[in-house]
């Protein structure tokens, strides 16, 4: 159990990094509380797996320090850091039984046999692996195998952190949900620090207390799922999280206020607008907070997509697309209408970053 702190960590796969493009991970500062559930969320190639491997010790940071409870472990081996990791493709020891697989990390650490037996049975119960404990592990399905890899981490009582590298990739869709809730339940039971890497926002938002959103080797925002939804600090977070993502609309400063292609936007107070000096301006508003009305920004109505309890309407203002979420059963105006933005959920961005 440990608090994990990343202090100015940078990593490059090139031997001699020069240009910014050489860095797979640009300066990351992160503080993970003991016992928390964290998710690293970002598109493929954003550096999240690199960050995970740095924490687990499979990679050594090019710059910066990694601290476990104030102990510098930047150059320590994974074994020394005492971490556990569940990989994208389930890793099991084919020739062993499920029981031996779970006991393997403990046997390597030379624990007494009765102690091993007790823990293995405990964990097997927790993961519902009890009935197949004596079967050969190679005969299990993908989700069973992934449970074993997880079990090998849980079975050690002194693990500092358990890390998951997109663990549900190879699991059937209907079992993904089951395994995801199992993970959440396990976290509540064992109270270990868990770090979960994924590009799937549903997985990240349901699992984690704190989500670390990454893009292009940088941490863009760290926050609770609610914060990420309500106050994205960057337009990237806005459209990466949420389905459909946030409407990001180019705006300009005109007459002391904000105007969207010539139409004044009243949802942004002039105070916020005045504080600005230069920069590319955008406003962000989630489709959930756009509503049709008789006044406001004039739009033409385009395609309507049915998404179960909602319908997603594609509206256009002078050619600029903006999506509107309409609750099922509510009327959708035809041909033309006006839209209004909810002032508390409309944010102003300068060069991509939130203006506070």
């Amino acid at each position, binding site marked *: 159990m440990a608090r994990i702190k990343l202090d100015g960590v940078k990593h490059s796969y090139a031997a001699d990094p020069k240009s910014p493009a050489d860095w797979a991970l640009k300066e990351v500062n992160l503080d993970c509380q003991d016992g928390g559930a964290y998710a690293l969320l970002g598109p493929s190639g954003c550096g999240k797996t690199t960050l995970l491997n740095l924490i*687990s010790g*499979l990679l050594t940071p090019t710059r910066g320090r990694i601290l476990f409870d104030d102990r510098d472990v930047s150059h320590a*081996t*994974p*074994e020394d850091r005492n*971490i*556990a*990791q569940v*990989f*994208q*493709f389930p*890793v099991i*020891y*084919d*020739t*062993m039984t499920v029981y031996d697989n779970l006991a*393997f*990390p403990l046997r*390597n*650490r030379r624990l007494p046999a009765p102690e091993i037996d007790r823990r293995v049975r405990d964990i097997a119960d927790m993961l519902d692996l009890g009935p197949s404990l004596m079967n050969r592990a190679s005969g299990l399905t993908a989700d069973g195998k992934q449970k074993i*890899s997880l079990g*090998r*981490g849980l079975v050690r009582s002194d693990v500092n952190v358990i890390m998951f590298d997109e663990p549900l990739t190879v699991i059937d869709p209907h079992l993904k949900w089951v395994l995801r809730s199992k993970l959440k339940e396990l976290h509540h039971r064992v109270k270990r620090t868990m770090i979960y890497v994924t590009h799937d926002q549903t997985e990240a938002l349901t699992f984690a207390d704190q989500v670390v959103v990454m893009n292009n080797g940088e941490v863009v925002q760290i926050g609770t799922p609610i914060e990420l939804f309500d106050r994205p600090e960057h337009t990237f977070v806005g459209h990466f999280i949420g389905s459909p993502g946030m409407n990001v609309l180019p705006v300009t400063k005109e007459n002391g206020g904000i105007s969207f292609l010539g139409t004044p936007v009243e949802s942004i107070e002039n105070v916020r607008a005045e504080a600005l000096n230069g920069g590319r301006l955008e406003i962000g508003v989630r489709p959930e907070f756009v509503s049709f009305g008789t006044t406001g920004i004039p739009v033409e109505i385009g395609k309507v997509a049915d998404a179960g309890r909602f319908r997603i309407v594609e509206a256009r203002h002078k050619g600029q697309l903006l999506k509107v979420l309409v609750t099922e059963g509510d009327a959708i105006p035809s041909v033309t209408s006006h839209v209004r933005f909810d002032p508390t959920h409309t944010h102003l961005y300068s060069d991509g970053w939130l203006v506070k």
Partner: protein
Amino acid sequence: MNKQVNQKAWFLVLPVVILVAFNAVIPLMTVVNYSVQETFGDNVFTWAGVQWFEQVLNSPRFHDALLRQMLFTGIILAIEIPLGLIIALAMPRKGFWVSVCLVLMALPLLIPWNVVGAMWNIFALPEIGLLGKGLNSLGFDYNYTRQPLTAWFTTVLMDVWHWTSLVVLLCYAGLVSIPDDYYRAAKIDGASAWAVFRFIQLPKLKRVLTIAILLRFMDSFMIYTEVKVLTGGGPGNATTFLSIDLDKIALGQFDLGPAGAMSLIYFLIILLFSWLFYTLMMRNEAQ
């Protein structure tokens, strides 16, 4: 709806049928033909029944050759398989040296068999060969043309030199196909190098090792050219393996009947061993 029957498709497999007929079926049937007849000059054949088979199976000469053959195959398998595995494990996985190692490993496999025999013949000559003269000047009494033991030593050494590479390349291919995550997981689980070999590498190599053993078994059981050039089966009959003996009977003595019978028995032995071995390995797999 009824399927349309179109027998014309058979013509499409005709080229393969002809090819297989001429390179396998017809030669094999000729051998079968010889094995049940007595052959005289001017292409006169008389029926002999199973006489040749009985003669071959009861001849001490055949028993000795078979025993020598099994001993030889046993020895080279016991050396080449572990040695090949060890070399493959020691080879680098990435970087410049990978291609260097692979080329060096592939070289012996690219040399024609009779050239291998000729090379070792000269290399091991006690008066002028590097190996032969070297061993003698180190104080060993080494003369593979006269002593059965050193003849065996040279033959085994030659085969190990020629074929261990095949085992190495197969094992290496198997090793590099193991995903990195397995090694990472093992590191995290605190596994020792031995445990990594025993529980990850060996199980993942099982299939390629099966193939390697099978190939080396079949090839070494049929070894002919290299031994023919190196020792000619001597000194005496010390290195007269089955194929050399067959050659002596068929082309030395022109006893086509017994040679045909021996060929078929020889073929069946290889088939039986291979089938037995493969079935056992695969049954293990299924469990």
